């Protein structure tokens, strides 16, 4: 059982502002049932003062998701739109007297829903995240912008923390490499800006930091310099290699098809026995190892599921 604070329990057992807000001025929907949590935030705004005068939520999710949603409504009622935009997931977590690390993503979902609802109120389409960078984690639909923002707001320095806060990496974990690259880049930027001590920054490829030890930071994230293959050659080679692996997968009642290649990301579709079992990540790793060997360059094999 999780160790929830008294306030989390209270907001879960007796949630405030749950339900539907008739004639809401702004509605924000985030999450999806496949991801295990989803939140709809509805706000009512007083036009002249630009103040949020009422808010209600509907949530599908665990105890802390429901508590975070309720806390969010309490935090924003009475605030101006401008003030509300400044609210972070940290504010939600603090309001609740803290959340278990594995549950921080619930507070992040609250912040996302707020931004979505405000965008909807302003008549904008809330897509800023997706324009901020590539989709990093396919399992949970987490893109680079979302990871970057969460790393900055919460001063994150490890992959585990990113998984706890955003869920990215918590499924098949094939996106670990992508997350590492973003984390290394953002941490390096934070160090340069003076927002993070150099010895706490994540460095790709380095061993986990021993507690409180000085380290020379040499950022070499994504060091992928030589590019001898043309795109077409690359795709051909990938196809050939996959063809050679398929028979052994088919023997197990599974299969693997190439869907797309984007830079060093190889999107594949796994079917049959491989899908949905814990071992699918082992399969993916195997496929990835073979491709890396055949092409002689770093590649990231990403399973594209049709479940999501």
């Amino acid at each position: 059982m999780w160790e929830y604070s008294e306030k989390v329990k209270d907001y879960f057992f007796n949630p405030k502002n749950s339900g539907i807000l008739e004639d809401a001025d702004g509605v924000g929907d985030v999450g999806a049932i496949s991801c295990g949590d989803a939140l709809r935030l509805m706000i009512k705004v007083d036009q002249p003062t630009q103040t949020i005068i009422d808010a209600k939520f509907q949530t599908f999710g665990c105890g802390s998701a429901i508590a975070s949603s309720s806390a969010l409504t309490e935090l924003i009622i009475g605030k101006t739109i401008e003030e509300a935009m400044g609210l972070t997931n940290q504010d939600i977590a603090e309001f609740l007297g803290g959340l278990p690390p594995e549950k921080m993503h619930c507070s992040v979902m609250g912040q996302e829903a707020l931004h979505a609802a405000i965008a909807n109120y302003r008549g904008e389409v809330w897509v800023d995240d997706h324009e901020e960078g590539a989709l990093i984690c396919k399992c949970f639909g987490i893109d680079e912008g979302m990871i970057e923002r969460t790393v900055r707001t919460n001063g994150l320095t490890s992959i585990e923390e990113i998984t706890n806060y955003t869920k990215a990496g918590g499924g098949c974990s094939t996106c670990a490499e992508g997350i590492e690259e973003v984390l290394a880049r953002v941490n390096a930027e934070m160090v340069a800006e003076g927002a993070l001590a150099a010895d706490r920054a994540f460095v790709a490829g380095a061993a986990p930091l021993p507690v409180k030890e000085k380290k020379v930071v040499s950022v070499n994230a994504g060091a992928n310099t030589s590019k001898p293959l043309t795109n077409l050659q690359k795709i051909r080679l990938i196809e050939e290699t996959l063809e050679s692996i398929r028979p052994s997968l088919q023997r197990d009642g599974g299969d693997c098809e190439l869907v797309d290649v984007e830079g060093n990301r190889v999107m594949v579709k796994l079917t049959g026995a491989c899908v949905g079992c814990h071992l699918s990540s082992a399969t993916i790793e195997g496929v990835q190892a073979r491709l890396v060997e055949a092409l002689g360059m770093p590649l990231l094999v990403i399973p594209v599921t049709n479940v999501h």
Partner: protein
Amino acid sequence: MTVSPVYLDNNATTRCDPEVVAAMLPFFTEQFGNASSMHAFGSEVGGAIAKARRALADLLGAEFDHEIVYTGGGTEADSTAILSALETQTGRTEIITSAVEHPAVLTLVAHLEKTGRAKVHVIPVDARGRLDIEAYARALSDKTAIVSIMWANNETGTIFPVEQLARMAHGVGALFHTDAVQVVGKIPMDLKNSAIDMLSLSGHKLHGPKGIGALYVRKGVRLRPLIRGGHQERGRRAGTENAPAIIGLGKAVELAAAHMAQEQTTVKALRDRLEAGLLQRIGNSFVTGDVENRLPNTCNIAFEYIEGEAILLLMNREGIAASSGSACTSGSLEPSHVLRAMNIPYTAAHGAIRFSFSRENSEGDVDRVLEAMPPIIEKLRDMSPFWRERDVHTAAFNPTYA
């Protein structure tokens, strides 16, 4: 909370029977000797262990007492069986298992595959959790070192046709191991007339102590110990015997044998009444697993459009303990691998609750749950954005990221 708690999570662990505790106590204090010692302190313990071993062999229907190797639990028994087979079956490097095994097996074989020590075939299951026998037949070959497929699944209770699977494995010269942790004590066994080569069990699932289990190894099957050292367990599992736990397990086994019929009658009747009552009172819910072919004590119900951890928290407030395959309770972010392997839709997999009974449950427990569940489910569905829009939710609920 003044009402007594209702414990329906017996597949997770059971209460140690007071008779078991009583049987164990003297072996902490008066009879504390080391069974290997020459003096009287030791030999008394040795005798008690021999009696416990006999009781366990009887429950399993094993021919010889020395077919029992005590381990530190079900997980250790699983590891011992699989790793041993890779060593003894020279020239064979493949493992066959199912997609719904306990992590005690799945995590191990995934690691073996990752480190290049074995090739692993994971046999899928259908929507009711039944093994794809054709895929199994195709995976078997003269490369198969061992097949490890559970006797019954811990989440849904679905029973696998282990006897048939074992004979098929022998057809290609492979060993057959089964994780029977959820089955021992619930279903009668007769291993002396069985093709099963190795079988894992765990004390704490049958009202015995935690941290004790056993691997049954049929006479003639070679075993390479997982833990090497002293000569205990005939050199097959080194380390001073956990005498109190072994003796406690012996008592638990005697009690299980005495109550075996009750599992199929009283316990099953309680489970069936709960299941029928919940389905009748709560719409948009269904049973997962192979309903006709299940452990008598287990029932796994998926409540659509709500999330399992939230359900468990509200149940806990009513003093009812069960468990969930939901992602959020386990700390992993995806719903249980068992429900995913069965392709249970995400709308339901997140809200699946497992109720597991034991002989200690009563009609009153069932009444309590039948009364408590409908308002809990209703409260959460009321809060869920998917509930009101369940037929059109794809159209109406339009999340910005997914």
